[in-house]
């Protein structure tokens, strides 16, 4: 029910903030999405879409930071290196 899917904004339509929409690409499937809750979103941005609304612009910087950390864990494990129990501060991104 709370499922939300990431997609990339292609084009924007409309000026009225409550009715503004975008054409959003989900790996080839395109849908019209309401942008009332993400007024800052522009073409090229990834947004998280839930029941026809973009509920947030995905923070690329946060995503790549977390992911680099996660990759590091995976890479270390592949090398048979056991990671210390404490998480580096960057993973605790609260």
């Amino acid at each position: 029910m709370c499922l939300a899917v990431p997609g990339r904004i292609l084009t924007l339509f409309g000026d009225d903030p409550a009715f503004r929409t975008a054409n959003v690409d989900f790996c080839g499937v395109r849908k019209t999405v309401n942008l009332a809750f993400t007024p800052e979103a522009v073409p090229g941005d990834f947004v998280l879409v839930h029941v026809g609304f973009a509920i947030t612009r995905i923070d690329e910087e946060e995503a790549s930071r977390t992911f680099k950390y996660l990759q590091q864990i995976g890479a270390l494990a592949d090398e048979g290196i056991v990671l210390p129990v404490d998480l580096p501060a960057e993973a605790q991104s609260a």
Partner: protein
Amino acid sequence: MRYVDEYRDPGIAHALAGKITRTATKPWVLMEVCGGQTHTLMRYGISDLLPESVELVHGPGCPVCVTPLELIDQAIQIAGLPDVTFTSYGDMLRVPGSHSDLFQARANGADVRIVYSPLDALKIARENPSRQVVFFGVGFETTAPANAMAVWQARREGLTNFSMLVSHVLVPPAMRLILESPSSRVQGFIGPGHVCTIMGFGEYKALAEEFHVPIVVGGFEPVDLLEAISMLVCQLEEGRAEVENQYSRSVDYHGNIAAQNIMREVFTVADRKWRGIGEIAESGLVLRNEFAAHDAERVFNLQPLNVEEPRECISALVLQGLKKPIDCPAFGKRCTPMNPLGAPMVSAEGACAAWYQYKRHA
């Protein structure tokens, strides 16, 4: 798909599972609140990757599952009226009321339609001025702004044939109820990532402090959930009880203010009955008086019903994490997704349906 595939990487998942195994020195019981997370945990067999000392229990986080029986009965009543087009997200249609469901109503001739968005229901209303179009507004905080926006747009456009049957519930009051229960075993929560995308993780601090329970807001992919579990186990081992945010690519402290504003303009907080659990104070949303013309309960003058759950169903205990689906004598026998006794067996996100689909042969 970007932001999805990389969070399903098996190497990273196994590395995180290994880290959890090395960190956990004591038994810990963790609850995921959100049904979407329950589904991921089951689908990817995450509990099988964890050490035996880390136990996952499933929370009440499926809005479809906690919509009260009598509201389903009322939805069926409205759908059966002449001139009504009843619209709903698909997973509500199979939820059994006390004697039938919305699919059955459709088979009996009612105009019941599945929509993907409340805006689709609004479109049907615009295009069919002679019909009363009713939308079943179900959901947690994730969905509330979208449903609020549909009502707000209807009022602004002066649509007189669009109304919403509202069954909106809020996550923090349900977590409070679970924590206050003397039989609660939950020691840490995976917080609901998309609910927090809207509301921010700030509002969970009060719960963490009052009950000294760690809460880590998590995403929905296997790697997200394993990282959230790892962060929770870390906190528990160190005796900390903080709110942390694993899902930082979508969630921040304050949440989506534009979405919260429309939600507060259209809805107000009220007591709500949760199916299988009972009434929880200030745990849901109802339409404000200014939007009464779009409130299906008032438009159709619904009278309160009092109906009883099937006796054999233990969904109340399952939804609070006190029992596992497999503890129910009816599970997989008299209660299956094709023929559900209770709501958690209906929605794919319900704990019983997820167990049936992925763990019944385990």
